[in-house]
């Protein structure tokens, strides 16, 4: 039950809000009543009410002609008395606003939310963790600021219906050889999505400034999927900070989610993943059962020209290459090992952060159905997985103050891999 003029109400709300802000008044429990005075006598009665100063009534629309609605804000202590009065004198009324304070709170939130939303990627705060909405907003800002370099592709929708976006950095050409980077496939690994945001900005800053990156983008494209598991990410904000998997429902189980890094078609079903839907390494009922995974699979296959694939996780400080599902060394294992060594050396050059490197199975544990085992099987020779900071002190809860240093050092490793890929076409 609101007044016909929405702007009128808006103005009233604003003035109350201003009053609240300036006078620091509290409107908890206050109600706004709309009184209908049928005739002059009734209008008079309402005027009597107006005169009772101790009630502290605030008339938004004062008594006037009979039939004209009378709107009044009634402070909580006066509500009973006012209603009793109105009823005793046969004055009809409706409750327009049940609780003024909650309405104010809502409006304030929206107001501040609007203010908090960055106007440009230069004012965006890279040293803090963001929500899904903020990251998606950032992407749009970046594209708007660099339309010649950056575009946003939607490669699918999540289980819960959220769009899945990939940023494409390209200086032209047609289906150029490309590099793929993804972050946030495991939703609780927050430093990765945060680093992805930083990488996106970095690319736009360095093109035309940094010789290496410029050379790379002059011949190749970069695809960057910042939030690879949007449902999981939203869940880490709303309900469970430690959520890892997707949010798909498994028929026959009350447990939710599949480990997207066990759902790829490489060694699927072999040791190194769980068949129990309640575990954090549940592989899913079949390979690519997760739309978040299938979307990337479809993209990679239809693109057909991806030359390096990097999937980013945290934590442990590792740089890994295939295989995870079997102990047999990858055919170009020596090359991968050398490249990994160069990459971690570059990484360490900035802050001294030490990374170990090696194949997945030798360096951490056997893992089947993992991302880079599949991409490698598709012929993407330079397939790597990172595990970023730290080594367990904070783990997934890496302090926000470490986001930018982590992103900066990781970027040096990525640059090394990208440059190598550029110089070793195949």
């Amino acid at each position, binding site marked *: 039950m609101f007044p016909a003029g929405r702007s009128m109400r808006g103005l009233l709300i604003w003035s109350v809000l201003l009053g609240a802000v300036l006078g620091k008044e509290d409107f908890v429990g206050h109600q706004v009543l709309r009184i209908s005075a049928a005739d002059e006598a009734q209008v008079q009665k309402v005027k009597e009410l107006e005169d009772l100063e101790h009630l502290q009534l605030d008339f938004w629309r004062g008594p006037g002609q009979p039939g004209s609605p009378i709107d009044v804000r009634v402070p909580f202590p006066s509500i009973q008395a006012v209603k009793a009065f109105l009823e005793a004198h046969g004055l009809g009324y409706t409750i327009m606003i049940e609780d003024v304070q909650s309405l104010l709170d809502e409006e304030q939130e929206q107001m501040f939310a609007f203010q908090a939303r960055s106007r440009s990627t230069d004012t965006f705060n890279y040293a803090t963790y963001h929500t899904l909405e903020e990251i998606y907003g950032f992407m749009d800002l970046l594209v708007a600021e660099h339309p010649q370099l950056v575009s946003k592709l939607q490669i699918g929708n999540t289980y819960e219906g959220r769009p899945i976006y990939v940023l494409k950095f390209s200086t032209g050409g047609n289906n150029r050889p490309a590099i793929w980077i993804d972050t946030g496939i495991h939703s609780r690994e927050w430093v990765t999505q945060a680093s992805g945001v930083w990488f996106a900005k970095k690319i736009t800053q360095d093109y035309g400034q940094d010789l290496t990156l410029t050379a790379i983008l002059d011949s190749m494209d970069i695809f960057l999927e910042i939030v690879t598991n949007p449902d999981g990410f939203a869940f880490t904000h709303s309900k469970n900070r430690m959520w890892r998997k997707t949010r798909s429902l498994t028929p026959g189980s009350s447990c939710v989610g599949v480990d997207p890094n066990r759902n790829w078609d490489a060694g699927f079903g072999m040791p190194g993943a769980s068949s129990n839907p*309640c575990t954090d390494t549940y592989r899913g009922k079949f390979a690519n059962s997760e739309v978040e995974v299938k979307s990337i699979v479809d993209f990679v296959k239809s693109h057909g020209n991806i030359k390096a694939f990097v999937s980013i996780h945290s934590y442990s*400080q590792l740089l890994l290459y295939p295989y995870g599902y079997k102990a047999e060394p990858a055919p170009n294992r020596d090359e991968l090992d050398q490249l990994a060594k160069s990459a971690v050396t570059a990484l360490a050059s900035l802050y001294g952060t030490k990374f170990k490197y090696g194949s997945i199975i030798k360096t951490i544990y056997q893992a089947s159905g993992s991302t880079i085992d599949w991409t490698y099987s598709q012929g993407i020779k330079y397939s790597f997985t990172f595990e970023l900071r730290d080594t367990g002190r904070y*783990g997934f809860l890496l302090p926000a103050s470490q986001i930018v240093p982590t992103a900066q050092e990781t970027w040096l490793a990525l640059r090394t891999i990208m440059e190598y890929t550029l110089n070793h076409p195949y």
Partner: protein
Amino acid sequence: MWGRKGMNEHCDLLFQEHFFPQKSQNCCPGFRLGSFKKCLFSFFFFFLIAVNEWISFAPCGCSNPRASCRGRTTQPEEVGSMPGTELLNSKPRIVNPKKECQVDLVFTTDRYNPEEGEERLGKCSARVFFRNQKPRPAINVTCTRLIEKNKRQQEDYLLYKHMKQLKTPLDVVSIPDSHGHIDPSLRPIWDLAFLGGSYVMWEKTTQFLHYYMAQLSSVNQWKTNDDAIDFDYTVLLHEFSTQEIIPCRIHLVWYPGKPLKVKYHCQELQTPEASGTEEGSAVAPTELNNF
């Protein structure tokens, strides 16, 4: 990793006095000491981190018999940015393949909350023995150059006093919060929780399972009386090979100089068909002085 500044590094004299050549039947030789158990316990945790690091990064031999031992992983090297540990050398040795696993370690230690630019202090050597993939590895450790006893006791007592001043009931949500932040005033709570957590982690560690403490997720009760701090809380442990997050309810009682008491119950993983809450195994309360 030792626990808060006073609790750390109590153990050099103790170990030298009480460890060698004392042998014992139970799996943890030397840990039948009276009032110094709390330090052993924090020491263990620290040590456990060193062991964890080794196991994560050098799976040859004990936890991954199929893989060959890579030269790199047995060379002296520093372990990441993990404070308090510098793994100088590690030599895995399979005693009986898949049944027992013995790891020799050499490492350095420093304070749990080191000051800027502070030098690394203690030097330790240890032997960790896993039997038949069971948890609670037996540990034999010697350290030198740790902080001297009087100073340690002093620091312990300061910590105790500091914690007594915290207002009760504690208005505490998760530590660290989602953004990895720990309010400086809440730091001691985290440290004490970590101490209890380190004991639980040691009890659960096997050659295949190793843990980190991910978060102090709730404080159920915090009482201080003249004798002790009584702390009932829940932590989330992160087990690395399964990637599971395991909530553990811990009840800890501490007073400097007195035996530390720890009871805990960790939540069991849900079976595939399970729907409701789970009853855990590992329910039996354990006290440090029952070693």
